[in-house]
């Protein structure tokens, strides 16, 4: 697996501006934070969800419940992947019934991860609606899934990989395109 970095498409300030813009877009579309909650998909999505929730609170104030989803147990490819997947904790400490859920992930690719997240969320209760906020949309959907809020659209080939690195996990904030599949 020979991977080399092709380009850096976002740096720390670009990521920050995008999160600010998405926070404003969410407030514009939903008009208020009353029934909102934010749920991030481990691991990148969870970090972004926390930052997004913080921004929304800064702009609008008020309570905004934050949850974390680990979708490993809902994957459709568990028997196909060679490496054993690590199962991490899911933490939804509030009732999602009748709530508007802002689901957050770092990269939207085939859409299968989001499908898992939707199934898992609905097992927790019936939300009013689920809106998807994504940092990078790289195309190549294999399921009919689309994002409501997009940070950046990056057309890629299947032979490339997009890596979102976040300070909380990787010590630096940046998005890079690499050549070679993950």
């Amino acid at each position, binding site marked *: 697996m020979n991977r080399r970095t092709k380009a850096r498409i976002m740096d720390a300030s670009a990521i920050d501006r995008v999160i600010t813009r998405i926070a404003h877009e969410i407030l514009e579309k939903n008009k208020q934070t009353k029934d909102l909650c934010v749920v991030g998909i481990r691991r990148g999505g969870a970090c972004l969800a926390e930052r997004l929730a913080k921004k929304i609170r800064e702009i609008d104030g008020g309570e905004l419940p934050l949850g974390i989803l680990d979708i490993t*147990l809902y994957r459709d490819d568990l028997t196909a992947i060679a*490496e*054993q997947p690590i*199962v991490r904790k899911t933490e939804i400490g509030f009732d999602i019934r009748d709530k508007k859920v802002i689901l957050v992930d770092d990269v939207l690719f085939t859409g299968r991860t989001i499908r898992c997240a939707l199934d898992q969320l609905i097992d927790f209760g019936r939300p009013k609606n689920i809106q998807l906020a994504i940092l990078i949309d790289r195309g190549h959907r294999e399921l009919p899934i689309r994002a409501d809020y997009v940070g950046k659209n990056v057309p890629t080939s299947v032979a490339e990989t997009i890596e979102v690195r976040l300070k909380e996990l990787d010590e630096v904030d940046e998005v890079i395109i690499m050549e070679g599949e993950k």
Partner: protein
Amino acid sequence: MTVWKRKDLLGLEALDAEEIKLILDTAESFKEISTREIKKVPTLRGRTIVNFFFEPSTRTRASFELAAKRLSADTISISANTSSVLKGETLKDTARNIEAMKIDMIVMRHSCPGAPDMLAKTISSSVVNAGDGAHEHPTQGLLDLFTIREKKGKIKGLKVAIVGDILHSRVARSDIWGLKKMGAEVILCGPPTLMPPEIEKMGVRVSYDLREVIKEVDVVNLLRVQLEREKRNLFPSLREYAVLFGLNKDVLKKGAKKDLVIMHPGPINRGIELSPDLADGPCSVILDQVTNGIAVRMAVLFLLLGGHKS
């Protein structure tokens, strides 16, 4: 990162510390599922798990069944005493016949030590040992480790006493293997007639004085007095056993640690190995053990069946 490579879980003796840690860490993530309103994840959908119990069981059997169901697996339970084993069918034949129904795993409790081992060699499905004679009860050992880690934050460096009929106990043996591998110190305490000779060779200390042992330990695990042993004259009377080796408030007053954790694999003989007030008191984690049993068994089923089929 440790990857699970074994087809079966037959005992803790063969596992190394990393494998045990993997199971305990995985179980952490599964504990939350039992707190949801819909206690189910689709992970083992389509897999078939057969519970084969040749000995009575409340906890272990219900626990394995629920663990399988919460992972969306299909599960059936067969009790030997209502099966064709009564007609003389051998274990090997029984297993092969069940396997012919295209199953993925057999969870077995049997009175013969080594029976799960033999089964694992005979069939290609996964085998989990739910207790084989006095040999091992690995999932009980694992849930005991999980509970200790949950309550104390760690296992390494702790002093753990196991009290009671060690001679006939598979729980004690699995506990000893697990605790030693994870770095705890183990002290066994019980009547000399119920202490296996040369058990010190497992790296444990032996004492016959509960009141001395209780002063230095962080955790005490009480084993059930198997009432049928009294008939075989292995101890003079249940009353004498309770007086010398039963845990009660008076024994704790001899200098037990304030944060002592009291465990028991169940079922309890109230008033014999453990007094009712302690069994139901704040130091007791007995019911937590049962709750954790589901999470640990879900982790075991997931690790054995959830991944790549090689």
